[in-house]
Structure formats: structure tokens, C-alpha cells
């Protein structure tokens, strides 16, 4: 069994086309909770194109990372698993951390898997809680089987890695002192890179992304038609929330797949989830039942979503939602 003589907990930031994804601050919280036991220090890594990482690195350094390693290269401008994994592996071999946390995003999950194989590391995927077991190994909780089971998983050898589900940890606040930003060398000459990042088309609507949203308003069959999503968007706008949907309405073509919450869509964990006209089939609940506060608006008081909700509002959503939007506007003045 390979030993893991490394030291330090690293958090890998995700920079998407110049914008720092806030999951890094959640990773820093998770890392600091581990560091209270292991006392090995918390560092961060940010990768990106030439001249693109400075504001992000500074921000991360101010939120509790003692060192922020910056990997800049033209080949790291767009996300490519091969390039990111090689750049990180080179840095890991030099600096020898013991643990690495990444966001369980599309890029984070595939990067983590590629990196873990390259480093012969152990990887715990999509976890919602982290701890150290009695031998100091990384242990984590991860929901599986559509939220039906919670598994306790642990790394047994090598470098210890985990991808952390967005919104599972609070975001680290400004620290009293700022960490240092360290520019690390990037040498792609030995990478043998084959894939090529060819372009990016941003999501056209300015809607908030589901997976890192603090509030989500979702619509289901009860909306009656695609037009019903205008109500959902009104309420989402009033609350500053992202727009979600059940599988049934995505399959009916009322809204794009990227909005789907549930087993075959996104797993989300917002602070507030408002389910409108969603009865709460198991496949949907699997993706949202760990939300902090759930509000259900439904005509059927007996449906599973109404029973799960912290606040169950019985009635016709076509009347309730406009009334809620009007009330929010009134409260705001």
C-alpha cells in the first residue's frame, strides 16, 4: 500500500471564463473544518489563461487560504481535463499535499477522476460532509441511490481526494489576514496534449445557475402548460432565485433540460426550495430533499411534496403565486 507522506489540504477553485465559481469558498470551509483536527494548513489552487487569475487568487487568499497557487497558461484558458490534470499533477508532485478537495461540478468531477488516476489517489465523489477517521484518513458522507441511502466512504491509501457537492458547506468569510499568492511554473512540454478546447457559448438567459443557487423556484405539471413558467420566473425574479423543473415538464418540452432537478437531472441543495405544482415523485425528491427550507404550493394537500414541505400552501398556484409576488413587492416597498 502506497503511503501518503504529504502535508496540507488543498482546495481547487473553478474559474469559468474569468468568473470565479463560489464553490471554492465552500471548499475552504470544509478544508478548515478538517484542518482544525489535522493542523496541516489550507491552500488553494486556481488555474486559468495568462493574466486571468489575479483577481480570483487575491479573493481566495483573503478568505482563509494560507497560500494560493496560481497555474496560468494559454492551454489552461478553457477547461480541458487532460491539461488541467497534468498541470495539477506536476504541482502536486512538487508540493506534496495530503488531501485535495474539488467542487462536484461538471468540470470538477471529471478533473478529479482524471487527476486521481494519474496520482493513484483515492477519490470520494460528490460528498456532502467530510471528516477524518481515527487513523486521520479522509472520510465523507455521500448520498446515493437517489437519496435513498447515505453512504459513509473513506480513502484507504495514497493522496486523499474528494469532490464536494455545491451548497453542502457555508461559504468562508473574509479572514483576518490574507494568504500569499504563489505563481507556480507550468511546463506543458511533457503533457502530450491531444484534445483541444474549441469554444464556449454562454447560456443566453441571465438566469442563476441551479447547482450553486441559494434559492430555487421549481415548476411541475401543476403549471398546466409551458406558459405557466412565466409565473415561476416571476416568483424566481422576486426572490432572486434560480428556476428549476420536474422531469415531467422537461420531457413535455415546457423548459430546457438544464433546469431539471432530480435523479436524471441536477441534485441541488439550496437554502430555500419552492416547489410549485410538483407532486413530489421519488425521482424528483432525490434531487432536492436535502434543501434547508422547502415550500410547496399545490392543490393536493396529500401529495408527497406537501408532506415533505416545511411550509405547505394549499390552493391554486395560478392564484397563490401572483399573490406571493405581490406581497413580496409590497414588503420591499
Amino acid at each position, binding site marked *: 500500500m502506497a503511503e501518503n507522506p504529504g502535508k496540507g489540504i488543498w482546495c481547487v477553485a473553478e474559474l469559468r471564463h474569468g468568473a470565479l465559481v463560489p464553490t471554492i469558498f465552500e471548499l475552504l470551509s470544509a478544508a478548515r473544518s478538517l484542518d482544525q483536527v489535522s493542523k496541516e494548513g489550507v491552500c488553494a489552487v486556481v488555474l486559468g489563461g495568462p493574466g486571468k487569475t489575479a483577481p480570483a487568487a487575491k479573493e481566495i487568499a483573503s478568505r482563509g487560504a494560507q497560500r494560493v497557487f496560481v497555474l496560468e497558461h494559454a492551454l489552461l484558458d478553457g477547461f480541458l481535463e487532460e491539461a488541467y490534470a497534468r498541470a495539477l499533477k506536476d504541482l502536486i508532485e512538487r508540493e506534496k499535499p495530503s488531501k485535495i478537495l474539488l467542487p462536484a461540478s461538471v468540470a470538477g*468531477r471529471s478533473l478529479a*477522476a*482524471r487527476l486521481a488516476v494519474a496520482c493513484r489517489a483515492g477519490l470520494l465523489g460528490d460528498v456532502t460532509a467530510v471528516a477524518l477517521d481515527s487513523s486521520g484518513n479522509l472520510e465523507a458522507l455521500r448520498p*446515493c*441511490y*437517489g437519496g435513498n441511502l447515505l453512504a459513509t466512504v473513506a480513502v484507504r491509501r495514497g493522496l486523499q481526494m474528494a469532490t464536494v457537492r455545491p451548497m453542502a458547506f457555508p461559504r468562508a468569510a473574509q479572514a483576518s489576514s490574507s494568504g500569499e499568492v504563489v505563481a507556480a511554473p507550468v511546463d506543458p512540454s511533457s503533457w502530450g496534449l491531444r484534445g483541444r478546447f474549441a469554444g464556449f*457559448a454562454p447560456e443566453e438567459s441571465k438566469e442563476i445557475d441551479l447547482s450553486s443557487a441559494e434559492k430555487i423556484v421549481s415548476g411541475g405539471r401543476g403549471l398546466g402548460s409551458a406558459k405557466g413558467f412565466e409565473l415561476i420566473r416571476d416568483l424566481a425574479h422576486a426572490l432572486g432565485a434560480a428556476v428549476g423543473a420536474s422531469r415531467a415538464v422537461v420531457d413535455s418540452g415546457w423548459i430546457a433540460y438544464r433546469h431539471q432537478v432530480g435523479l436524471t437531472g441536477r441534485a441541488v441543495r439550496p437554502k430555500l426550495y419552492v416547489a410549485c405544482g410538483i407532486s413530489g415523485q421519488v425521482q424528483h425528491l432525490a434531487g432536492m430533499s436535502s434543501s434547508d427550507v422547502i415550500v410547496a404550493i399545490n392543490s393536493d394537500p396529500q401529495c408527497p411534496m406537501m408532506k415533505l414541505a416545511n*411550509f405547505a400552501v394549499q390552493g391554486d398556484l395560478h392564484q397563490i403565486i401572483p399573490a406571493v409576488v405581490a406581497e413580496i413587492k409590497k414588503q420591499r416597498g
Partner: protein
Amino acid sequence: MNIVVCVKQTPASANLPIDLATGRIKTEGLQLGVNPFDEYAIEEALRLKERLPGSSVSVLSFGAAAAEEALRSALALGCDEGILLYDPAFEQSDSLATAHLLCAAVRKLSKAKGAVALVLCGKQTNDGESGQVGAALGAWLDWPAASCVKKIPQADDSKIVVERLMEDGVDTVELPLPAVVSVIKGINEPRLPSLKGKMAAKKAVVARWGQAELAADVSQIGASSASVVVKTAPPETRSAGMTVPGGSPEEKAAFLVQKLKELKFI
């Protein structure tokens, strides 16, 4: 083009009975089927086969003996051969170890029938849900890879262009072949099996490869996996909520908004 699809046999229902004493899924009488995400991978492979003459589709599944049924489902849809990776020595393999076994099988296939150009996987399974196997397989094979692919606008014998659905939009990535791609729901509309296909699949011989055939690195698989499941348990149930009082929609709305304000959501 030689295409490989990786499939897993998983529970067919989202509503799973849990044994509260052991904290595990009750497997007795549990309906199993092809992991829903893998159905899109199978369909995409068949469409590529139809587009590129002379192609073949091999299906791999790592699982118990019963997983042969998942392979037969793929054969009924038009895949050319099915291979079950099964050996007691493979048990307790985590997702990286699973990818290692699939890697050994892809290499063996390449030797037996000519170089494999493309491996397609589902984005994740509906049981383990790690979403790591496709990317890890790319790493073990040392091939370029892309995850969460929503469209393959271009594919020929040397290169594949994929559109990847990210949180903030769509990335386009070019991968020279061989490559590994994992696909999401919505990339296609999977076909149904024909009666003829079903009949043929029933009679088809599904090969079974164990450690004797794969000769996988035993330090990376089975009980030597780098991660373990310590235990499983059902998640905590939520405490009961309240029904929002009021007669009119306006009264209910006022109560709800007041509560949301107290919780600092407004």
C-alpha cells in the same frame, strides 16, 4: 469504427426498499434494468454505427452474473456483442477500480478485433452516482475524454467534436480518436428494441471475462481499491412541516412571505 459502450445494471425504480437493520437496499425481488444514462450512450453508439459504415458496437458491463440481462437489452437494440466482466476478485471495486477493469477490457478488445476508437458511457449511474467512471477510464487508457456531452456534431475515423453542457453554457471540445465520452440525457431519444432484436438477443452468447482474461493490476482493483464504503444508512427524515393558514390566496401569501422574511430569504 470500433465503438465500446459501458453499461451498468442498476435498480429500475427510484423507490427503493431499505432494510433498516442493515441500512442497505433490500435486493430481493428488486427490479433491475440498464442504468438510464447508459441508454443514451447505447443509442449514440448505434447512431454513429449507422453513420460510419463498417462500424461495430461492443458493450461492456462490470457486475454480477445477473448483469448479463443488461447486456442482452443492449444487444436487442442492435449492439454487436456483449461482454460481462465478472470475477469474485473484482468485488468491492470502487469507481476508479471499475474504470481500471473497463480499461483492461477495452485494451483486450483492441487486441482481439482491432483498435477501439471510441468509448461511450452514461454521465453517471442512478445507484452509485459518482459520475467518475467515464473520466477515470479516459485517464487509465490515457485517452482524451469529455463528460456531460449533449451533442456530437462531428465524428469521423480520426476525430470527434463534442458539445459539453456546463453550468454556465456549452463548451465545444475537439478530441482526436481514440477518446472516451460520457453523455447526458437529451443527447438523443433512445429507440425501442424490435421483436427480431429481442429474439436474437435471447439466443446471443454473452462472453464472460474474469481476472484470467483481463489480467488487471491487482493492486488497483477489488479489495485493493483506494476507497471503501464504511457503512450505509437511510438519511434522516425531515421534521414535519406546517400547513400555511388562511382562507384567501392573499392571506396565505401574506403568512408565507412573513415566514420567509423571518428566515431572511426576503
